[in-house]
């Protein structure tokens, strides 16, 4: 069985000196002034140490022996891994599980944050249960638990629903507990602010239960998550501000009642195909500001009761006036998809930024018709083409065709083919070949960014080329 000190010893054998009981002379001035500091100061110091160093302070002296126990626990698995250990290796993983168990049972709490990456937890069911019991008993605030073992067959212990102090919850490679015996209610996670489910196998009721249990949740992220059957998610939350659906699979995503929703992020949800089209339904979202990337090849957009089709006239029933940033993925040259661009623009007539991610060469012929749409005339200030792959002269001439006066500057930087064009009609047209993988879901759900899709562009323009923004 592992123990706390033997843990420290095993990780760093040279660090545990034999108890010689000798008196030590200081290199300072012989006086021990640090131990005389008030306990809250010593606690602050210990809280800033990596876990192994922190545990080691318990053996320093009488004054130090209980300090670590009074510090809220922050445990990151990377800090207790020995050099050369690989979690995917069973022996290393067993050792890791034993270490975590040892630390969790030694520390009386409260637990501040626990970040664990494990594998093969199926053979450590008892340990897993005792961990979640400890999380609940010791008031854990932030949990990131990632199971690397495939398939994602680890069921999270039902004690998860007893972790009432959770503020952030990240689960990966697991299933949520079925038959918890706990009736979901708003007291369950009354502090929970952010939920991220990464590579989880989900049922519809998992998400609905989580939302019911979390009356203050502002961010819900589904990343690389899926299920083996058609998943229709109906989102109801009075607190949710950001819904992120990232390379996950579902058949229908309906924002049924989300009065505080500001941001609906859809990204690469074609990565896992279970059906041809996903319905994105926007019912009650009075504060929705940012939506995208809408993809006419994959998405059927429904606003309230109306499915948006390319020959529709705009009406009050099909308009979401609060949206300011609209992002689309369009294959230019694919007629059906191009024709959806004006439709989407009509649904969001207050857009200030329209952003298109192009998967083909840009051909701007079709923007001719787009010019007559109200928001293009009145409110759009910026049109941005991400991942532009055509020739700049083509773009220049197509825009000229539409009698736009354009001044453009070649942006000299290490990134290829980045061009900024300033068009009279839209205030600014930006074209950029962005680093495709630089955008990630953390940026996309960062509520402090006005245009979450523009992270890369704005970072570049403000840092290297401020004159273009003026």
């Amino acid at each position: 069985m592992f123990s706390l000190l033997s843990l420290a010893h095993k990780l760093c054998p040279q660090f545990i000196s034999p108890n010689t009981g000798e008196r030590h002379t200081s290199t300072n001035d012989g006086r021990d002034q640090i131990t005389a500091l008030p306990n809250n100061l010593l606690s602050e110091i210990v809280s800033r140490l990596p876990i192994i160093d922190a545990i080691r302070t318990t053996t320093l002296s009488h004054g130090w022996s209980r300090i670590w126990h009074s510090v809220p626990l922050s445990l990151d698995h990377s800090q207790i891994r020995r050099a050369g250990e690989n979690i995917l290796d069973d022996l290393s993983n067993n050792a890791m599980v034993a270490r975590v168990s040892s630390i969790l049972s030694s520390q009386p709490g409260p637990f501040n944050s626990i970040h664990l990456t494990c594998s093969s937890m199926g053979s450590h069911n008892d340990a897993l249960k005792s961990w979640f019991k400890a999380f609940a008993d010791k008031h854990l605030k932030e949990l990131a638990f990632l199971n690397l073992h495939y398939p994602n067959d680890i069921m999270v212990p039902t004690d998860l629903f007893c972790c009432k102090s959770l503020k952030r919850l990240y689960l990966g490679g697991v299933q949520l507990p079925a038959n918890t015996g706990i009736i979901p209610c708003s007291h369950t996670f009354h502090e929970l602010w952010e939920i991220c489910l990464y590579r989880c196998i989900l049922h519809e009721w998992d998400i609905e239960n989580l939302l019911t249990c979390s009356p203050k949740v502002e961010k819900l992220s589904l990343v690389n998550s899926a299920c083996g059957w058609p998943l229709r998610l109906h989102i109801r939350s009075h607190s949710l501000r950001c819904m992120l659906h990232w390379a996950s699979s579902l058949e229908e995503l309906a924002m049924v009642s989300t009065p505080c929703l500001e941001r609906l992020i859809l990204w690469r949800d074609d990565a896992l195909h279970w059906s041809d089209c996903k319905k994105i339904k926007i019912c009650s979202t009075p504060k929705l500001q940012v939506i995208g990337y809408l993809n006419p090849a994959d998405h059927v957009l429904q606003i309230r009761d109306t499915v948006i089709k390319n020959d529709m006239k705009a009406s009050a029933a099909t308009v979401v006036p609060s949206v300011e940033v609209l992002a689309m993925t369009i294959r230019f040259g694919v007629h059906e998809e191009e024709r959806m661009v004006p439709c989407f623009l009509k649904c969001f007539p207050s857009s200030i930024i329209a952003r298109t991610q192009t998967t083909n060469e840009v051909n701007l012929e079709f923007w001719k018709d787009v010019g007559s749409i109200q928001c293009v005339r009145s409110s759009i200030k910026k049109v941005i083409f991400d991942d532009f792959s055509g020739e700049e002269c083509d773009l220049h001439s197509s825009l000229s065709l539409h009698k736009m006066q354009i001044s453009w500057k070649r942006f000299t930087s290490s990134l290829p083919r980045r061009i900024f064009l300033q068009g009279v009609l839209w205030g600014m047209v930006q074209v950029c070949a962005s680093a495709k993988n630089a955008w990630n879901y953390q940026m996309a759900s960062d509520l402090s960014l006005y245009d979450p899709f523009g992270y890369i562009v704005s970072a570049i323009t403000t840092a290297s080329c401020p004159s273009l923004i003026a």
Partner: protein
Amino acid sequence: MATGSGAAAAAADAEEKESGSRMITLTSNEGKAFVVTEASARQSATIRSMVDDGGCVDKGFPLPNVDSKTLARVIQYCDEHGNKEAHTVDERAALAKFDKDFIAELDADKAFLYDVTMAANYLHIQGLFALTTQCIADTIKGKTPEEIRTAFGIEYDLTAQDEEEIKEEDTHA
């Protein structure tokens, strides 16, 4: 008080913006007076709340727990962080450089480092408190207990009971 403090804070903020250069006197436990800008003094949450609550700005603030030498050093930090802007990358880099040099100098005199840490704790100067406690933690990091005891002059005085508790944890954990 609770109802008035918000309004007082707003008024104080407005006043600060107007005058911009109001001066505040801090007095050490040896009776030595230090005159600082309000922006500098507001680095301390303790003083900030006293000012915002309409405290005796004119009379100054006596600090019975801080000696002159420590207060002078603390003010050096507050001046840098309170009086200078930190909006641009360059300005932030300059402040980071200041912090680095500031703490390197303090680290050379551990007793003084503790005094400044205590003062930062008492005055609730968050940035300075983080800086000094991190510095002490960095000294502890990666050392054997033996080396830590030597570095800080800690005497090995674990009682039989302490050892028993540690041993018990050792077998139960």
